[in-house]
């Protein structure tokens, strides 16, 4: 079976981006092309998979063809991949499978979302579009509400509390402070995060990720062509994925995300690792409770002990068992929905190659994972990256 390597990765800065879709994607692709160590041109790419959710309603059809056309890759097979906030996590999985299957040697996987260009009248477009529209949204639930229900239940079942979530928020803002690509580069004190504006009780503003524009791209290559492009590849050792009921009320438990458990179990098994082997994890913290639960579902903490994990600072860079969200995560780096999954891969690629800002570098990192969730856990993709091939 073919092994797959990441040979390049790039992204825009997340936040209120001045460019439109074409400009943002071109910037991310340009960064990715430039990050390849040896000569690389867009025409080296055999196929493209680009994740996005909705673009605020614009250019829903043939998005990927438009974007590749504006990044020098016209003519190759392309498609848009949509799985809510896990769109580009699944684009990455599709790209990995295209190479594993032998259909392509060099593939680009990316994601993009333009969220902040909507007028005030259209700004509610994004609220609740990826939940169970008929049953959750019409009960007034958007994702802050959905995750608030999970948080309150986790507090009830496991004795976690809002201060545990505050610890996660403070950590991720601290991690993101030095990240030049982050949307919110601001450290936040415990007291400030504790007393934020209530968005969906018990979640405050400091428990919620921002609404970001952004694009990201990673370039994958088959083992037999890798050396044409780099002597320092990062190996994409495995891809795992899972799904679950869309609506919370259909799931046996709302304090666990089965899709994450499935995806991580499959990815760890295929990579021949356990959670203990992971040095850094880019985790889908759209809300702080999502990170707390993910630390359990990914195996970094026992079920019900995610609060304790946060309290004991076990996810802090170069301090805890594993660095959780070295980029600042969705909370600080930002969350341009469709771009988030491959944006996580950009961070892991750079961390494993030792090329992030010095203050952010994780010491001796060998294995990193990305964890990208769609909706409140209906879909999930987990990828394992390593300095070593296996």
């Amino acid at each position, binding site marked *: 079976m073919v092994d797959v390597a990441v040979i390049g990765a790039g992204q825009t800065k997340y936040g209120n981006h001045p460019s439109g879709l074409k400009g943002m994607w071109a910037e991310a692709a340009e960064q990715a092309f430039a990050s390849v160590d040896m000569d690389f041109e867009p025409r080296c790419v055999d196929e493209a998979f680009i994740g996005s959710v*909705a673009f605020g*309603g614009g250019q829903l059809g043939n998005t990927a063809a438009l974007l590749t056309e504006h990044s020098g890759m016209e003519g190759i097979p392309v498609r848009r991949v949509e799985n809510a906030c896990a769109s580009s996590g699944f684009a990455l999985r599709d790209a990995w499978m295209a190479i594993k299957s032998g259909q392509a040697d060099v593939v680009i996987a990316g994601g993009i979302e333009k969220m902040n260009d909507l007028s005030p009248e*259209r700004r*509610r*477009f*994004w*609220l*609740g*579009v990826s*939940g169970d*529209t*008929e*049953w*959750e*949204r*019409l*009960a*007034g*639930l*958007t994702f*802050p*509400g959905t995750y*608030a*229900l*999970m948080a*309150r*239940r986790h507090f*009830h079942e496991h004795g976690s509390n809002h201060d545990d979530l505050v610890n996660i928020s403070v950590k991720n803002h601290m991690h993101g402070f030095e990240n030049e690509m982050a949307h919110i580069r601001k450290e936040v004190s415990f007291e400030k995060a504790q007393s934020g*504006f*209530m*968005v*969906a*009780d*018990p*979640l405050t503003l400091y428990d919620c990720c921002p609404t970001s524009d952004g694009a990201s791209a990673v370039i994958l290559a088959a083992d037999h062509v890798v050396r044409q492009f780099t002597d320092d590849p990062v190996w994409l050792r495995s891809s795992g994925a899972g799904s679950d009921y869309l*609506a*919370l*009320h*259909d799931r046996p438990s*709302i304090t666990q995300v089965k899709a994450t458990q499935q995806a991580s179990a499959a990815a760890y098994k295929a990579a021949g690792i356990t959670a203990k082997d992971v040095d850094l994890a880019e985790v889908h913290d759209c809300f702080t409770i999502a990170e707390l639960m993910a630390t359990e579902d990914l195996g970094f903490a026992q079920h019900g002990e995610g609060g304790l994990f946060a309290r004991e600072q076990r996810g802090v860079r170069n301090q805890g068992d594993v660095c959780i969200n070295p980029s600042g995560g969705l909370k600080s780096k930002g969350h341009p929905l469709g771009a988030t999954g491959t944006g996580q891969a950009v961070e892991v690629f750079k961390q494993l190659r030792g090329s992030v800002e010095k203050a952010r570098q994780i010491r001796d990192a060998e294995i990193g994972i990305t964890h990208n969730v769609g909706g409140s856990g209906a879909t999930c993709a987990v990828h394992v990256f390593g300095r070593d091939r296996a």
Partner: protein
Amino acid sequence: MKEVIDWQGYLAMFDEDALMIQSPFTLDGSIAFGSDSDYTTMAIAGLQLLFSRGIDITSVRSLPLVNTHAVKAATGVEVMSDEENDTPCEWNLLVGEEATLVFTNNLERDLAFHGPADLEALDPTFAEDMAAAWNRELESTHVSQGAYVSESAYREGANARLGLLAQHSGDALVWPPRQLDKHGERIPTANQALMARAKVESWTKLSAAGAPSEFALRAPVLGGIQTVFVQFEQGPRGVFLVADDAEYDPSIGDQVSFVVRRIYAQEGLIRYGMKAIPTN
């Protein structure tokens, strides 16, 4: 008047051959609807009260102030209009000038019911803002942003939404409805009514700024929207808004019951559904 009871957030008064149901609120001296009630929601509450007293009704005659589709989905009762005079109806639904309804099977009798005097006065500013919000929602040009539940999708799910009808799938009850099971077999049509009581497993209150566009006009007036995540006694779980007029701060473990209220309006159509109220 033999008795006055609090029923699904309304006041109900029985007589030998009639039931009067009215809103518990007043505005400027008149009986007025609460913020998510109307003649349709009161008619459904009235029919459910009659059912609970063992009175079997299959059809009523009424003026067209009642949403016949919602009443049918929630109760199974056909509402006939005056134009359908050929169809026999034992019961009549009379709509009052204020927020009152009378069900009777004796139009010859004196229907001068007198409700209790100690009704709750609505804040005029709140009532005005809420009425204005509903009026804007009811404009045919008012549409949702992003996700959208079409009229046909709403009607398709109405029996489950308004009647809490669940499906049998093996030994389990399924609600809301689902299509195929794990064997690829179609799950039978919903025909088992869930008990309209459930236990709160979680809850949240969403700030007005975060409300989906369906609720964006009214959420600021209400100061946010409150949702409970519940488990029914028979197993299925669901999420429900708390009724606007319910003075209720939920806690995990609470028992709630369900009443039909307005959910939102769009493209000129009011969509009704169940909302939670605390169980006394």
